[in-house]
């Protein structure tokens, strides 16, 4: 398959790929990073614009199309497989009922099923906290549990 590349001075570059019987997919890379994708059904027809993407969207779409899709690391939703259970980081919001309570009073484990293995407060980590450990707004609770259990904790936090 041939890819036709043309320089468009003042605009950017244009790539064309054969597609279908005698149609083509046309991609225009603008100097400002914008990418436009067109389809031209036949050589005589006018191209129809399908969509345009910024540079990040284009990268992501490219990996999906290549079949090398992956989850990007997002610390807000980091999860690690652990049998049926997973470890998740859940932040306690200002208006959460948990804020100000100890782990024991809040009965986190009995209520949600999640075992709290650590509480992160700013740069400090309280690992293996006991029932007296107090939870504050802004803390990040690190727990082990199934997805449903985490969902219950998330609702409380």
């Amino acid at each position: 398959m041939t890819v036709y590349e043309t320089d468009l001075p003042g605009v950017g570059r244009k790539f064309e790929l054969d597609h279908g019987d005698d149609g083509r997919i046309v991609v225009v890379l603008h100097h400002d990073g914008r990418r436009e994708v067109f389809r031209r059904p036949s050589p005589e027809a006018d191209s129809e614009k399908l969509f345009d993407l910024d540079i990040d969207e284009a990268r992501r779409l490219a990996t999906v199309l290549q079949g090398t899709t992956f989850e990007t690391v997002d610390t807000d939703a980091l999860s690690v497989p652990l049998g049926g259970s997973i470890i998740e980081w859940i932040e306690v919001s200002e208006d959460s009922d948990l804020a100000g309570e100890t782990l024991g009073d809040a009965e986190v484990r009995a209520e949600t099923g999640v075992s709290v293995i650590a509480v992160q407060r700013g740069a400090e980590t309280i690992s293996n906290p006991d029932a007296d450990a107090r939870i504050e707004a802004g803390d990040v609770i690190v727990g082990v549990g199934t997805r449903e259990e985490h969902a219950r904790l998330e609702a409380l936090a």
Partner: protein
Amino acid sequence: MADLLLDAGIVVTAVAIAGAVAWRFGQSVIPAYLLVGLLIGPFGPSAGGLSLSLVEESEFIELFAELGIVFLLFFIGVEFSLEELFAEPDRILRAGGIDFVVNAGLGAVLGLALGLGPVGALFLGAVLYPSSSAVVTKSLSDLGWIADPESEAIIGTLVVEDVVAAVYLAVLAAIALGDAGGGVLLSLAESGLLLVGFVLLATLGGRLVERLFDAESDELFLLRVVGATALLSGFALQSGVSEAVAAFFVGAAISETDLKLRLERVLAPARDLFAAVFFFAVGLETDPGAVAGVAPPLAVGVLAGVLAKVGSGYLGGRAFGLDDRRSLRVGLGLTARGEFSLVVAALAAGMTGVVGDFVPAFAVGYVLVTSVLGTLLMRYSGRIERAVASRAG
């Protein structure tokens, strides 16, 4: 100082508003900047004793407009691509050649017919010849033509125009500056010599230029490029050579390096600001009455000029091997005139006699009409294509 700052505020706010209105109607900003300059300049119209006139020519406007010319041409140089020119020289030079002969030729004939003399004919040829890269490429992107083969013919023609117009401008500047003092021939020889220097720099000095400008931070990069460009074009002007043409070749020197993309990113905003003030200033210096005064030749010029561009564009499209419909589009797409014609107007404004009186007013009117008309012709090209096809069929 307070006056200058206030002037700057008024001018930039005015072009900001005019630009927003143009954007809203899918038009290029160039005619809008020109119009607002005409309206609030010293020749602005007054109604019921109330004048719209807000600004006079000032040092701020003069300096920014000058930088506008320099950076417009600098960027045309940056975007100029030797590679594109010589990728398929056959068809691109054929299309560019037809374009030059037909349109510059028509301008020259019109100039002679209007009794402007040989110098006036040269100037009018330069007003009618080059299409506006800024207006045309905006429409190409807006309408999605950019994906189709006609855009290659259109942009190819624009590339030829850029380099031919730069040399053309050098000749006109030699005449204009020689007119002001010294002899034209001497001035021509000087600019020829200086241009050879710039061309050598552009072709051989790529590596050196790259090392010179490749600063780590964008801020330092911006300062170096603006500094060097202003310095070289100022030096050129001091030696009696067009600053615009010098800037073009400085840009062309940089375009052959890897810095091109960074330039587009870092310097385009500076260019846009200066260029907006330049277009405004051309409007400002133009008396609407003078434009109205040249209305009859302007009407003839627009009619003949648009037909000539459509015709030469059509032939250029055929040279690119396009079918009839796409070739017609090439012609419609190239109709808009803009920045080059206005640089010629600014140059002619410094001339004495009939050229200095007639050419600037004519050029401003010509750009106003064709830049708007060109955008509209492209937008409604479907109807025009069908009308032409049904007549031909």
